Structure formats: structure tokens, C-alpha cells
């Protein structure tokens, strides 16, 4: 075992290498590109025995990934944001094939407006496609969970592709100390790729992904996929136990931080949970019993884990780094659905949307949320969903708009003058 400083992207690439992936269909997109560049370099230098092919789009990339997995080899791929959406048709398709492979998504906000920075609208848009989803909050977790994802995808109880999500910039480009597990041990942990009944061979003619007529076979296959996805929770726990035995690090489906006696619990996904943990510590220092829950798995959704963890908790503040336009935060909706009707459910499940397009969430804002939620609980009042956005920010933005407007006006005026024959002074 070696300790290295690795970015989240490098950690993902290392995991694909340590899992001995055979095939990597690729396509560049910021902030993911470093992953495929690392893999390409290793392959070129003979450090990794795999084949990387750059397709002409992510739609094709996922098609090739699914087709190769369906032919019986271990496949890894990576994308981000626009790429994930460009591939959307194929995400559903290859999950329906039950093609097991691992895809890293480096989260980045979606166009429009176009941005490079991180939020979760890309990955939540893929929540219904049939891929399982693991969300990471550190570079170590990216490496470990990518290794685990291969086990999860290939498990006979699941046989579905898995997305491992890491946040653009915050993880993709941030160097953290990462323990690089021993290559032989990884090989042993992940195991030989077992195609099971999914392969194409001349001696075993097979038809895969054929059409169905009517709702009955369609429902049959769709529901089978759903059931398989639901197995993801217990299989993840099995895999995590085995992982701990191999490497000593343990991962829960739902990470709980100081929740035992908590009166208010923040719920948040991905790397921003580090900010939230920090805030929990400060809040506790200030005498408020705060805690944090972070789902590692978003699909399957750990409903029971949440129900258990939030028993006797008075108030929850869900912070969504996404907006389902016209509805609000996706995690908030899902958590509310999971808690509805539970006898010991929290009195209040507040919804905050923040961290959009890489915007920071400050410590003060965590304090503000805690205060607002506590007051609402005391007064037994509901709380409307809120966007984390300060007055100063709004003022600054308006100022910029005003400056741009004035400049445009000046330009327009000087053009008019030139037309009239007036010289520009």
C-alpha cells in the first residue's frame, strides 16, 4: 500500500487500472478529461493492458461500452455533464441490456447557461435510467468506491451498470492524500470478469436487447431491472464488508456524522458534505446538536436507512445541489417520499437549494439554516423551500448587468454618431 497525493480524477483512473478493466470507450469533456488522459498514457506506456478507443460522441461511447460488456469483457468509461446527457438514450438502453460496467461521472452544472463548474443536475437527471449511483466525497472514496462499483455491477444479484459520481473541481482537481491499494490485492478483491450468461460467441448464438410486443413482456423486464437495482443496497453492504476485510476502510450506504443525539440533521450529497461536517462541528461548539447524513447510494435509494437514521430527529435540512425545475430539490422530494407516513418521522423536512454551478455554501449559511429550521420547529410552522443566495450576490450581479448595459448603450451611441458623420472623440 502506498500513499500518494491524487486528484479525484487520478483516483478514478487508478481504480480502473487496479480493477484491470479491459476496455475503455472514451470521449473528452471537462472536468473529466484527466481520467481518460491518464488511462491513455498508461496504456501507451505499457503500464496497463487495456484498450482505449475514443468514440465520436458519448452516445456512441456508452453504446460501445454496453456492447463490449455484453460481449463479455470488463469495461470502464467516464464522462460529465453535457456528455452524460448526450448519452442519455443509451444510459437507459444499456441498463436495460443488463450490461455490467462502471462509469465515472464528474458532476458539472448543465447548460444553459453553460458552465464548467460543479453541481448535481447532470447526475440526478440520470437517476431513473437503471444505472446504480454511488456519490463520493473524497478522493480516497472515489478510488475505493470505483473498485467496489465493479463488484456491485458484476454481482449476479444485480448485473447493472454503475455510475460513480464525484464533484467537478472540488474533487476532480483537488489533490488529497490517497492510499493506493496493492495491485494484487485489488485484483483479488475485484476478481476475474465473469460474463455469466451475457456474451456473444460463434458457438453460442444469442439475441440481446430484442424488441417486445405489448406491455406484458415490457413490464416484466422493466420490473426485473427495478428489483435487481433494489438489491444494490444489501449487495453494497456485502461488498463493503469484503472491502473492509481487504483494505481496512469501511463504507456505509448512508454516512452518518454525529447524528445519534442530533436535533437537526443536514442531508447533502457529494463533496459539499465536508463543508457541512465542518459546520456541524462549529454548531456543536456553539451548543446546537447538529448532525449530517450523506447518502452514498442515490440509486437504489436508501429509504429504510434514512427512516432508521432519522427516527426521533425533529428537523431535517436537505441541501440539494440541483433543481428539478418547477418542483425543487430532488433529494428533498425523494427523502420526503421515503419519510412520509413514518410514525417517528421528523416534524420538519426543510428544502434548500444551494451550491449551484459551483457556488460555495458558507459556514454562516449553515448556521442560518440551522437557526431558521429550529425556529420553525419551535413554532411548529412549515418552511418554504429556499435558494442559498445572498443579497450581496444579487447586488453584485445586478451591478455587473448595469455596467454591461451602460457599455452597450455607449457603443450604440457612438455608432449612431459615426453614422451621422460625427467623429468619435
Amino acid at each position: 500500500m502506498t500513499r500518494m497525493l491524487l486528484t479525484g480524477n487520478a483516483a478514478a483512473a487508478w481504480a480502473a487500472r487496479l480493477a484491470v478493466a479491459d476496455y475503455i470507450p472514451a470521449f473528452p469533456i471537462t472536468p473529466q478529461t484527466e481520467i481518460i488522459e491518464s488511462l491513455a498514457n498508461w496504456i501507451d506506456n505499457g503500464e496497463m493492458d487495456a484498450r482505449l478507443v475514443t468514440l465520436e460522441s458519448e452516445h456512441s461511447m456508452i453504446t460501445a461500452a454496453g456492447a463490449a460488456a455484453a460481449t463479455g469483457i470488463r469495461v470502464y468509461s467516464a464522462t460529465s455533464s453535457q456528455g452524460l446527457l448526450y448519452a442519455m438514450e443509451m444510459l437507459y438502453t444499456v441498463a436495460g441490456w443488463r450490461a455490467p460496467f462502471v462509469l465515472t461521472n464528474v458532476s458539472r452544472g448543465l447548460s444553459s447557461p453553460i458552465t464548467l463548474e460543479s453541481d448535481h443536475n447532470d447526475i440526478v437527471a440520470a437517476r431513473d435510467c437503471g444505472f446504480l449511483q454511488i456519490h463520493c466525497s473524497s478522493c480516497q472514496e472515489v478510488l475505493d468506491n470505483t473498485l467496489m462499483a465493479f463488484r456491485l455491477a458484476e454481482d449476479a444479484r444485480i448485473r447493472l451498470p454503475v455510475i460513480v459520481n464525484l464533484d467537478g473541481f472540488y474533487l476532480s482537481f483537488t489533490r488529497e492524500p490517497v492510499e493506493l491499494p496493492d495491485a494484487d490485492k485489488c485484483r483479488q478483491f475485484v476478481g476475474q470478469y465473469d460474463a455469466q450468461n451475457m456474451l456473444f460467441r460463434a458457438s453460442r448464438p444469442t439475441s440481446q436487447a430484442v424488441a417486445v410486443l405489448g406491455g406484458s413482456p415490457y413490464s416484466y423486464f422493466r420490473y426485473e431491472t427495478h428489483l435487481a437495482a433494489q438489491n444494490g443496497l444489501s449487495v453494497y453492504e456485502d461488498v463493503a464488508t469484503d472491502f473492509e476485510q481487504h483494505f481496512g476502510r469501511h463504507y456505509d450506504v448512508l454516512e452518518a456524522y454525529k447524528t445519534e443525539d442530533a436535533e437537526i440533521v443536514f442531508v447533502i450529497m457529494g463533496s459539499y458534505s465536508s463543508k457541512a461536517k465542518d459546520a456541524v462541528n462549529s454548531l456543536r461548539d456553539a451548543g446546537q446538536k447538529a448532525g449530517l447524513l450523506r447518502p452514498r447510494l442515490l440509486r437504489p435509494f436508501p429509504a429504510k436507512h434514512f427512516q432508521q437514521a432519522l427516527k426521533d430527529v425533529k428537523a431535517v435540512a436537505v441541501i440539494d445541489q440541483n433543481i428539478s425545475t418547477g418542483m425543487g430539490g430532488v433529494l428533498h422530494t425523494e427523502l420526503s417520499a421515503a419519510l412520509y407516513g413514518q410514525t417517528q418521522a421528523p416534524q420538519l423536512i426543510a428544502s434548500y437549494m444551494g451550491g449551484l454551478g459551483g457556488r460555495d455554501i458558507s459556514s454562516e449559511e449553515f448556521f442560518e439554516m440551522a437557526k431558521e429550521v429550529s425556529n420553525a420547529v419551535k413554532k411548529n410552522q412549515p418552511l418554504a423551500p429556499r435558494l442559498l443566495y445572498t443579497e450581496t450576490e444579487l447586488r453584485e450581479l445586478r451591478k455587473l448587468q448595469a455596467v454591461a448595459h451602460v457599455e452597450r448603450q455607449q457603443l450604440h451611441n457612438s455608432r449612431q454618431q459615426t453614422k451621422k458623420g460625427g467623429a468619435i472623440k
Partner: protein
Amino acid sequence: MTEAAVGFYRRMKDLPSTHLLGTGTAMCAGCGGLEALHEIYDIIGDKSIFVNAAGCMTLLSVYPFTPFRGSWLYTAMASAPAGAQGVRDALDILKAKKQITDDEDMQVVVLTGDGSAYGMGLSATSGAMERDLDFLYICYDNEGYGNTGQQYSGATPHAAKTSTSKGARGFAGFKKDLFSIWAAHQPAYVATVIGAEPLDLAKKIEKARSLKGPRMIIALSPCPTGWDYDPKETVNIGKLAVKTGVWPLKEYINGKVVHTKIPRQRQPLEDYLKCQGRYKHLFEPQRNEVMLNQLQQKIDQYWDNING
């Protein structure tokens, strides 16, 4: 390429007399695409995997039955060539790692309609050729989006009526020259075929089979449903397409285009148009002499260039 293999189909009687592809599929009676596929499959054989894009032929394999003796993978409308890439690469990797023997290998065959080939799938096809993918592409060209009810596509010929060009002039655009677009990529092989000329087709498929790299086939596929004619006329219309010069039978290999069947005495184009409902408006209620002349001229020009 082995000359023996290429030279096998010399006469009609050399062609297989029984078909490999099963019957009882959901294709329309008289489907020219299915006719071509039967002939092609006999030559490719069952050591093959068909990677299919959305279109009429998707309904060949309906759970839990298939007419194919070999393998099948349905992908989506845009990305069948990428599916072929994944399968081909996986088979190569398995061979290189000695996890399968050579006799487990298969011909990887893409099967799509023209809508996919001329349009939505063109980028994926271009990518596959650019990567020199070892595969066979079969486009059955029924000159429209057949499966969705024959709307015009990039392959629809000028003046043809489709369900999105029902006006008096028919389709305003012109059929895209996919053969040249494909050939510009300099793949191993490009050919046009038609089911109604089975010997020419067999020779070309046999040649394609013996080559490596991208081998690209466009089969004009008379479509009784979309072209509006009696299903029993499929072979006749196919023959007319060649005799009138509408569908030049040709191949591209080693940088050169060769016409494999030059109609010396070309029949008037009208003979081909007249028997299809999609061109009825050129003859009724009165003859559209201007349009008919224009269409004939285009064909004449093409062949003037070929014949020098």
C-alpha cells in the same frame, strides 16, 4: 482477399437455393429490404452478429423469437456502428488475451435503414470508418423513414411523395449521395446492391466478406408499403431501378469506383416511376412533362459522366 472466395458466385446456379434466415417475420409482404437481407445472410452465414438500429428490421427479432441463426444486438437509431465497435473490440480483446479461440469469432454486421445511415447514424458511421473498424455495414434503403410511416429522409428521391411530402410536387430535396460520402472515407469497400440482382449482390457480399476493415453496402430496397405498389412487383421494380439507371450498381475499392452492371440500353425512367404510387402525381391528373424531363436528365447526366 482470396480469389477463390471472390470467384465462387459466377452464375445464378451457384447461388444458395435454400435460405438461412428464418421465415414468418413481421416484415410486410414483398419487402425489398428483407429480400436483400435473405440473399446477404446466405452468404455472410451464421457466424455473425447483427447490430441493428431502430427501423423496420428491428421487428425481425421480437422476444422471444428470431429468424437469425447467429447473434443479434439491437442498439438505437443513431449508434449501431458504435455497438459494432464495442462488440468487435471485445472479441479482439478476448482473442488477444486468449480467452476465446479464433473460431468463436464472428463477422460483425451493422444493419440499418436509410434514415439511420444517411442521417442520424452518419456521425457514428463516419467515426467507425475513421477508426478503420473491421465490420460490414448493410443499409437497406427504402428511401424514407419506413417504420414510422414513410416520412421523407435524406435518402428520399426528388419529387417522391412521402407522408411528409404529400404536396403536388412531392419531396423538394434530392437524394443524398451516401455512396460518395462513404467512399470519401476511403474504407476497404463500398458497394451498391439490390435484391433483384442476386448474382451481382452475391459477388459483392462475398468480396466484402473476404476483406478486412469497413465494408459498406447500400441495398436499394423497394418497399411496397412506402412506395405504394403491389407487393408482387418488388423484383420487377428492382430490375427496373437498374435498367433505367436509377440505381447504379457499383463498387468502390482501392480508391477506384467501378460500375458492375452498366445498362447499355437504358429504359426510360418513366417505366420505373409509373409503377409506383409515390410518383403518381407526375402522371395524373396530367403528365408533369417538365418534372419528368428533369428527372430523366439527371439520370442521363450521371451516366454520361460514367460512360464518358
